[in-house]
């Protein structure tokens, strides 16, 4: 077994067997490796480029692929060509890492997708060959259909015999190896003047000179100037091919992705490059130009983005361009108020939103539930999309939504405020009309809050504070304000009573130590209470709106315990509907109940006696309770009225839909 040193010596010996050609080549800076091989071929009177490579130990039938596949033989090739190893190594294209494409190769210190480089085909610019008869490496770049030096269109076949130009035989890159005629006299035409400046700039991105690439990159706007030049060039090709007018849309891109650049022209490349230079305005104008004509609430991403929708495919390979578009498009669509149903559409962070936000973002940002947000779906000016197909598909305008949430947070619900005041909620609008409360008029805020009436928290606090600060003049027995107002189905009556309390017209003679709301807590002077009731009965005749109340409100309005209300409902004296959390009772039912029955406390209030005395009085009058509920007995109002010789005109004022 040979020792390692012997193996090394053997390898050195083998390398020594490679001899240089007598006539070496002096590479031009922009010259391709096959051009060097071809030049060596011509100078040393060899017919086939494969022979030159064979001298280096590279036995191949397809020499044009040697720069891509035989990178390990770079030193040997350099020896044969009498060139420096670096001159050869830099001209080879081993596999490299490129973010934009999986199959990538090295390109003069940068990297490019492998499909962007042509190997076997020899593309030349006759004008450039007239200047210097060597093959420019930039001619290998497939998307460059022109020579960056002369702007002449590249030819890949002989204009005289139509034979394909290749690398197998070489009698000089400037001559057709089939008919041997010089290509330098042909004039295939040049790209238009309007394209040339940008055509040179985009070609500089794939220049063989690293400094030129860096300069070209520095001229690009962000974020492209932070990318690798190869990725920017790839992006220009992608955008150019995707935005091509060739029908159907995306066809050219599909061809390009399959390595077919036959329909890809300089105008396509320049268009893509200009789109990058004008980023992100170019993307915005693209989206605006592609804005769907239909007024559908939700558009498919393909409908809006056209061929660019490929970047939103779940199968799309991650590329810098893809990532950029995926992050840039959703905010842009939001800004342009174009709703798109797509998974990735809602993935962008809320921080990127400018004027709109998705349901999910709104929920997270404002701590709202989906149901609340769904209520404002029909309001113009807030919601861009009204149809909810998938999570994140709804679009809300940020500012109006924020305003609505702000108002919502600064308001108190009708029920909560009514509970604090211990008055029926239906009295609150009257309080608002009286200027004691500020009602929330903002429709979106009301809907976000559940749809019911709401009042500005500050005004409610002000009212409650004022009521709490009402002085207690004397400590005397009497009914609570709530009890005094029982049977009053007019909100204005309750509002006016509170107003009188605040104005001092209704004397507060005591406060109970309970936490069941103001009206239940304060005790008013009995005479004033009776006067108030009479006054309110004649003054307050505002029509009640048709509405339903809870059993709690019913208890307040009827002046009976809530459990008695429940018993009345159970005894079918009052018709009510059970709605999950409690009963919902039509106000008319309560009025009817009030008209039909009378409690002892009402008799007592009429006669200015105690309830116990009132019950004794009715019993002595031979009137028996008609209904007995949990805590109270109810008498037929007609019978009691008759017994008291009281006219029925004192029935509660109530008119519903014209009936009274």
């Amino acid at each position, binding site marked *: 077994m040979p020792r390692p040193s012997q193996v090394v010596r053997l390898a050195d010996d083998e390398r020594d067997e490679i*001899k240089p050609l*007598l006539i070496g080549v002096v590479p031009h800076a922009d010259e391709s490796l096959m051009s060097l091989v071809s030049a060596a071929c011509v100078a*040393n*009177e060899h*017919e086939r480029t494969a022979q030159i490579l064979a001298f280096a130990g590279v036995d191949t039938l397809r020499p044009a692929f040697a720069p891509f596949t035989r990178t390990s033989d770079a030193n040997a090739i350099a020896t044969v060509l009498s060139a420096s190893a670096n001159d050869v190594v830099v001209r080879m294209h081993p596999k490299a890492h490129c973010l934009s494409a999986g199959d990538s190769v090295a390109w003069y210190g940068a990297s490019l997708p492998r499909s962007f480089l042509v190997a076997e085909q020899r593309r030349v610019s006759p004008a450039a060959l007239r200047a210097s008869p060597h093959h420019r490496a930039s001619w290998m770049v497939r998307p460059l259909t022109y020579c960056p030096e002369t702007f002449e269109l590249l030819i890949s076949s002989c204009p005289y015999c139509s034979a394909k130009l290749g690398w197998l035989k070489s009698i000089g890159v400037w001559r057709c190896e089939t008919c041997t005629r010089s290509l330098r006299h042909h004039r295939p035409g040049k790209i238009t003047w309007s394209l040339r400046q940008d055509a040179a700039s985009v070609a500089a991105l794939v220049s063989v000179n690293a400094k030129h690439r860096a300069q070209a990159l520095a001229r690009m706007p962000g974020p492209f100037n932070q990318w690798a030049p190869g990725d920017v060039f790839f992006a220009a090709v992608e955008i150019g091919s995707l935005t091509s007018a060739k029908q159907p849309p995306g066809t050219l891109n599909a061809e390009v992705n399959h390595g077919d650049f036959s329909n890809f022209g300089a105008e396509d490349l320049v268009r893509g490059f200009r789109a990058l230079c004008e980023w992100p305005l170019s993307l915005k104008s693209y989206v605006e130009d592609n804005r769907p004509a239909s007024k559908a609430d939700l558009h498919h991403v393909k409908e809006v983005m056209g061929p660019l929708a490929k970047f939103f495919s779940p199968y799309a390979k991650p590329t810098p361009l893809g990532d950029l578009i995926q992050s840039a498009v959703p905010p842009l669509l939001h800004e342009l108020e174009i709703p798109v149903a797509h998974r990735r559409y809602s993935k962008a962070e809320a921080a990127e939103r400018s004027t709109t936000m998705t349901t999910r973002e709104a929920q997270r940002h404002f701590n709202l539930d989906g149901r609340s947000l769904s209520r404002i779906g029909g309001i113009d000016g807030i919601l861009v999309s009204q149809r909810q197909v998938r999570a994140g598909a709804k679009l809300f305008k940020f500012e109006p939504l924020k305003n609505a949430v702000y108002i919502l947070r600064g308001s108190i619900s009708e029920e909560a405020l009514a509970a604090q005041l211990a008055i029926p909620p239906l009295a609150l609008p009257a309080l608002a009309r009286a200027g004691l409360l500020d009602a929330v008029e903002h429709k979106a805020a009301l809907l976000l809050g559940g749809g019911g009436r709401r009042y500005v928290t500050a005004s409610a606090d002000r009212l409650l504070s004022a009521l709490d600060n009402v002085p207690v003049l004397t400590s005397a027995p009497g009914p609570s304000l709530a009890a005094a107002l029982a049977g009053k189905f007019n909100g204005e009556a309750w509002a006016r009573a509170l107003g009188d309390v605040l104005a001092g017209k209704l004397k507060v003679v005591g406060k109970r130590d309970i936490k069941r709301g103001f009206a239940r807590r304060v005790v008013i002077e009995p005479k004033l209470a009776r006067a108030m009731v009479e006054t309110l009965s004649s003054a307050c005749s505002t029509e009640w709106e048709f509405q339903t109340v809870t059993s709690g409100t019913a208890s307040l309005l009827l002046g009976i315990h809530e459990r008695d209300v429940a018993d009345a409902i159970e005894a079918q004296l009052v018709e009510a509907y059970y709605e999950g959390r409690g009963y919902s009772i039509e106000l008319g039912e309560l009025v009817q109940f009030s008209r039909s029955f009378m409690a002892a406390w009402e008799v007592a209030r009429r006669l200015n006696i105690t309830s116990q005395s009132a019950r004794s009085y009715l019993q002595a009058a031979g009137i028996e309770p008609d209904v007995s509920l949990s805590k109270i007995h109810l008498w037929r109002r007609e019978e009691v009225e008759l017994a008291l010789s009281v006219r029925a005109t004192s029935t509660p004022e109530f008119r519903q839909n014209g009936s009274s």
Partner: protein
Amino acid sequence: MSSLDNNHVAARIRADLDAIVIENPRASAAHGVFDYLIEHSERYSTGGKRCVLMTGPTQSGKSTIIESYAARLNTPDLREKRQIPVLHVVLEANISRKGLAQNILEALEELGIQAGTSSGSETILLRRVRAYLKAAGVKLLVLDEFQHVVHSDNDRVANSVGETIKRMLIKGVCPIVMCGIRGAERPFKTNSQLAQRAEPAIALSPIEACDPADAEFYMEFLASYLLQVEDVAGIENATSLLNDTTPSMIVEVANGVLGAACNLIKGAVTLAVRDGRYHITGDDLALATDRYFIADGLCFRNPFRDGFDAVRPNQH
């Protein structure tokens, strides 16, 4: 010292003796002609070049003359620049046009250049030869063993090779020296165009012992050579061979050919060294004559054993 060691020493000494080159009037004259050809070529760079034929029997010093000339011009610094002023090509037997080109390219490959001898057609190869001769800065192309052209399979081939050489001269690549034994001059005789482009032939004829000029030249050469043998091989009594009739015996064995005379001395030295001696005896010369000349049929009489024969005209 063992016989094995003696053999090693003998081999080394023989190699050193083979490297001895003696400046002599014949070589100088030949070099002069070569210089003339090169000078002419440089002066008349755009036109056709000239050639010269150098003939002589085997071991007459043709190759030595060429190698010494090449050693003078092919300096190491030029070699580094891959410049080969004198390209010495040894032609193969049955040479054809393609073979001629391949032989020239092989000569280049021996100098460390990838010439692609087997790559391409005859036309391509000849074109490459012209390109390479120009690129390598070849000032003088020496085609050794030129008689192989004459001795080709058929006359047509021989003529075509001759025509090719003539074309190379007309095309003005570089002057050419053609070396060979008897018969090498035939293309010059049959191709007048080639003859008109040739300088008078350099004939390295054998020494005529009866010719005083040749005898003087021979003695001077032998003296110089034996001094070199003493210096190089450490033979103590090499110059003693100049005494008495030994030089004449050497000439007789060598048939007047200087190279053969040198070989006889080399053989005698080798035998002495193998025997562990550093001085030559008459027996060494006799034994060398037997082994290297009589055995090969180059000589039919051993004067060192049979005695000096009377002076007689050279058989050539």
